[in-house]
């Protein structure tokens, strides 16, 4: 009797709280409008062909969890992470693709017979790319039921917690957008269940976003940070094409070392130029829009017209371009995001065990390409790790195998989020042609391309560059041959105590 009364009382308290809050006060929620004032068309579910200056593009959405998880190091060690995990595009992420979706996919409701399980899609093989937790807004229509209830970002927290807890990825979920897209990125903080002593907020820093607002820059000191149990939707108009990256900005030496690092790139509108049309004409047309023109007086003008005229380059069939080059110089057949990172096993052990952490003597012993050390870098498909919940999770979805079609070119979008030191990556065989640095085309203000060949690149945490591996000479690079990317920091060719591994992967000519 007493307990029933208490139950009733609590029910009333909860009910009052719920009803007293406005709709926007829902703690977990996602946002993915199907149209906006910038993209007013009813359908923004595909990239339109380039027609001329102005914003075209589409709408893209993604949901990620902020929490924790486990990954497997090259020596087999199970390592604790502070980590982001996928809460949209689960299936695509497991396939090594970006989890970024058009509204039609993001806003699709999960209709599987069995609810999403911890570890999904590893657990049940579910094929679902929508926003985990999304349900019709049952509070609409005066609560009259599901008939016609709008899908407006309301979520059921149960699947979010089932899927998001202990489901960290290394690197964090891949993001890819196209110039002129509006990007709605929802961060949902599910807490770190292995560290109940922590009350860690998380944020997203879109590293390199030009002319950023402080509000969406993800620096907790300069903006807001998202508490456990809350969702926050970051809003970006896709900036200039290039290889950016993202990470949490809470206590960076800790959260970055512990694994809250991810990849993100922006594809150029030049990809959308109809096949056979002039690339130079498209880039010239963009000079008519002050947002994208390159004025000679603008010290930060990022993408001048190429010097060579007349310029006959046209949009090739298939493949893509890294930048709006206007001359086809950044063309590639296949693209691979490669993120360099390092883990200090001592720091990760301390990070799991409630002890004070030291920063000054942080020393990485695992050297990672896309969250994996050799030989895991050449293992196909997602790597699984059993987490503390006893369930296998897709911990490291991205292999680092560079597959180049014979006679083709591969774009490597290389970023580095190491927290301790500079790392060098070298190519044995195919020269590295560096075409961009820090998400900007290498071109001087007179229009000369400044791309250069090298056999190695060196990056610190917080840097990125674009490399093209040109295998178009099929005599030198015949089908079936294998080349290597490895680090000449020879002590980084190790997996902690194992002396062969670390920062290395294969380039395969198919």
């Amino acid at each position, binding site marked *: 009797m007493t307990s029933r009364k208490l139950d009733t009382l609590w029910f009333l308290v909860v009910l009052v709280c719920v009803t007293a809050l406005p709709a926007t006060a829902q703690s977990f929620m996602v946002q993915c409008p199907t149209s*906006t004032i910038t993209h007013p068309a009813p359908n923004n579910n595909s990239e339109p062909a380039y027609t001329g200056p102005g914003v075209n593009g589409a709408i893209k959405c993604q949901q990620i969890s902020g929490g924790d998880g486990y990954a497997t190091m090259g020596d087999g060690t199970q390592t604790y992470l502070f980590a982001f995990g996928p809460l949209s595009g689960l299936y695509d992420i497991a396939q090594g693709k970006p989890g970024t979706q058009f509204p039609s996919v993001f806003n699709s409701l999960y209709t599987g017979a069995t609810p999403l399980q911890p570890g999904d899609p590893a657990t049940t093989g579910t094929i679902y790319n929508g926003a985990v937790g999304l349900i019709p807004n049952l509070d609409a229509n005066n609560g009259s039921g599901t008939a016609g209830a709008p899908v407006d970002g309301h979520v059921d927290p149960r699947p979010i917690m089932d899927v998001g807890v202990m489901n960290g990825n290394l690197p964090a979920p891949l993001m890819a957008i196209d110039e002129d897209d509006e990007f709605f990125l929802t961060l949902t903080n599910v807490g770190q269940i292995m560290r109940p002593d922590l009350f860690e907020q998380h944020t997203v820093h879109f590293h390199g976003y030009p002319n950023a607002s*402080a509000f969406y820059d993800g620096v907790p000191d300069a903006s807001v940070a998202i508490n456990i149990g809350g969702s926050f939707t970051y809003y970006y108009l896709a900036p200039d094409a290039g290889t950016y990256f993202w990470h949490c900005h809470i206590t960076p030496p800790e959260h970055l070392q512990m694994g809250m690092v991810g990849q993100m790139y922006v594809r150029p509108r030049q990809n959308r130029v109809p096949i056979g049309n002039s690339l130079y004409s498209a880039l010239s047309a963009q000079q008519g829009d002050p947002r994208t023109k390159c004025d000679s007086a603008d010290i930060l003008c990022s993408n001048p017209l190429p010097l060579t005229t007349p310029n006959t380059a046209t949009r090739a069939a298939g493949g893509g371009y890294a930048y709006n080059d206007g001359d086809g110089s950044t063309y590639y057949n296949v693209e691979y995001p490669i993120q360099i990172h390092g883990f200090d096993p001592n720091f990760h052990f301390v990070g799991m065990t*409630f*002890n004070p*952490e030291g920063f000054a003597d942080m020393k990485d012993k695992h050297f990672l390409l896309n969250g994996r050390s050799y030989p895991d870098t050449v293992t196909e498909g997602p790597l699984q790790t059993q987490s503390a919940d006893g369930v296998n999770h897709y911990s490291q979805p991205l292999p680092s195998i560079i597959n180049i079609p014979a006679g083709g070119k591969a774009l490597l979008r290389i970023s580095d989020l190491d927290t301790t030191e500079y790392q060098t990556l070298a190519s044995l065989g195919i020269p590295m042609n560096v075409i961009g640095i820090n998400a*900007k085309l290498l071109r001087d203000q007179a229009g000369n391309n400044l791309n250069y060949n090298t056999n190695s690149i060196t990056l610190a945490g*917080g840097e990125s560059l674009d490399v093209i591996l040109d295998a178009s000479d099929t005599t030198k690079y015949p089908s079936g041959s294998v080349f290597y990317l490895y680090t000449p920091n020879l002590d980084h060719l190790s997996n902690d105590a194992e002396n062969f591994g670390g920062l290395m992967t294969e380039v395969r000519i198919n």
Partner: protein
Amino acid sequence: MRATNMKNTISKAMLHLAPMAAVAWLLTATAYAAAPGITGTTFNLTAQPAFISQPDGTAIYSWGYGCSTGFAPTFTPGNIPNAACPTMQVPGPTLIVTEGQSVSVTLTNGLPAAAGNTSILFPGFNVTATGGTTGLLTQEAAPGGSVTYTFTASSPGTRAYYSGTQGDLQVEMGLYGAIIVLPASVPSECNSGLASANLAAKAAWGESDYRLAHAAYDHPRTCYDREYLFQFSEIDPIIHTQAFAQSTKVCPGSSSGCMQVATEPYHPAYFMINGRSMPDDMDTNYATQYPHQPYNGNPHMHPGEQVLLRIIGQGRWQHPFHEHGNHVRILGRDGNLILSTSDSATTPALAGPLLFTTTTTPGQAMDGIFYWTGKGLNWDAYGHNPSSADSSAKLPCTPDANGYNTSAPTAINYYEWCQDHNKPMQATPLGDVAGGGPVTLPDPNIFANGAWFGGSPYLGPNATVRAVGSTGTTPPSGTIANSPTDEAGFAFMWHSHNEREITTNNVFPGGMLMMMLVDSREFVIDESN
């Protein structure tokens, strides 16, 4: 308390304490950076020991260059109060000279005799050394002795100077500084057009000019409106402790002294910008509490201002200096302007890269230009509202050829990006900021607000107060470092992206970190204090 909770308690407490310490200073004396130093053609410097301070309370025995007793330097910019040049400072005095001048630097060795000789290298200049004793790289000053270095300031730009004697120890101990060469002739473009409009905007709000020159090089693309100098270095406290312990050793007759200090293995625990760790770096220039660390690192700017960054790696390590907010155009390195090789124009186009992370390299300097305008956000950062009763909310935006509102230097939205004018960000109205935009802002109660959060998504006090009121979003924040009613700037963290270097002796936050603020025009940036 269980030991297992210590990590959390320590780091979180510091997270709040350190910004609050910074807040306290910011409230007592707002501190902006400029690039202060001493100017002239003859400099009498001394190398001496002293203790410098760190924000964890540690006093670290160091060696630094300073002004010799009796040498009365000319300070520039002249309108910064409390300017001083002590006999020891870290970094050493910033020497500001003009292209073509003959410069003479006399160094007197005031280091402990046990440290042996010392010297200064001026890489990039053709130096003649007179007096002193012969050393490996240059003429050196023996303990108590002097040496004079003479050179012509052959080309403009920022460069490092540092000890050329036992560099592994002496540079680590603090014997380094910056020399800035100003161009002999400033291109006319730097005093007309947008450059003069920006100056008029400054004047309209009573802001003074703290530039050393109006251009970094003899090139019209190097005009600038503000400038800041950042010198990156590290300290391994064990080296300094050893040096202090041996500083009184007696070793007659040895030019290299007789210290036996192990400079390897190297484990730095302090990571500094201009000799200070965060939050001390955001305190004022010449602040009396740091008698041997006179220079700060605390950049402020208005939208559209061209801001010259002079960046030097003075330590042993490289540091990836990440500038949040926008890219930096590298103009030149070590005083060498990077120009297009194919451009036959009389002023060839720039060819330096655009970087969002400007890696510092030991001994190397670079000059770059940064600006912030908000272009491309796709929402009105000023939260303009054409149906507001507030006239400031209804200001027009008249695009110039590049799309900016530059025809109204006295307006608070001078240099606004006009394509996004009146474009809403939020789906529903927030206070006196209109709705209709793409984003729904969640309940502020699920956020934690930062000390430099301006109180709303918007730029400037007018927009912020119209959006969310005088205290900003909850919790009410009258004590933050970026008050909603006064400043409400956009704050951006500028820091080393080798993230362990934004700590002070294992405590976060600290080290190589500062907050750069983009302020709307209502907020008066006063670099004088």
